């Protein structure tokens, strides 16, 4: 990962959702996972745009699954996190952790 190339908040959320879902990570499940865990409404287009950006950076990879009847004969696009993605996620999470360290007294949590 180039120096200073930290992941944005949505990128981190999407990558964490992909990580949680494992082999079942595809557009619909990623979107639902984010909505259920964060309470944040997100469009499927935003999920795809983020995953496309992460794939271009080499942080995630995708492959096409088999077409299924409940999807009207359309194939799923599965996603998985690459080694570079794990590194980028670690670096971004560590940066946040380091920045918030020692702020417990000043931080007015809800």
């Amino acid at each position, binding site marked *: 990962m180039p120096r200073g190339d930290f992941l944005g908040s949505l990128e981190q959320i999407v990558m964490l959702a992909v990580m949680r879902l494992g082999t079942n990570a*595809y*557009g*619909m499940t990623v*979107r*639902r996972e984010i909505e259920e865990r964060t309470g944040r409404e997100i*469009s*499927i*287009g*935003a999920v*795809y*745009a983020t995953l*496309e*950006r992460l794939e271009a950076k080499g942080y995630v990879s995708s492959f*096409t699954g088999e*077409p*299924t009847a*409940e*999807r*009207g004969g*359309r*194939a*799923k*696009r599965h996603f998985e996190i690459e080694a570079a993605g794990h590194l980028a996620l670690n670096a971004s999470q560590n940066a946040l952790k380091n920045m918030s360290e020692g702020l417990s007294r000043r931080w007015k949590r809800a």
Partner: protein
Amino acid sequence: MSPSTLALSERILARLMPPAQAEALVGDLLEECRLRLQTGSHVSVAGWYSRQLASSVSVLLWASMRRGAWLVTVVTAVASFIAALGIQLVLGFALSPMTTSKSMRAVIMLLSFAAALAPCGYVAASIRLGAARLLAFLVFAAYCAMLASSARAPLWYDWSLLVLGPVATIAGAALSGWLRRVRL
């Protein structure tokens, strides 16, 4: 969700992302619609689908603009339009002294117009197919505006311009596509 609605959604999305991804995205929406139908009404699910599609289109449109795909298309179309106007001016200026007849001059103008737009359509389509389509639209819109603002030329000439412009552009683009297929 009717098959025609899904097909239309897929066609719209395929303009903004690779077709295989658009197919997967519509499949995801359809799968979630089926899940939502177990607990919600048809109306609420149709509303959810429309909201998802609308917000997805806006996000993907912005993403494709940031990638520069649209910018290249628009710049190519506008540059081709300007080049076509330049070629038309030069051809018209060079050919019009050949005759003194007004109607012959009009015919020469029409031919120079087509001769300018066809190669520009060809070049635009070689760079990006969408640019040739946008060029045809620009030509049509420009001549519609011109017709609305002045009514000096004969009607047959105005209508020929209006039809010939986009047709010449699309013919050039079609030639580019055909040559590309032949080379493959």
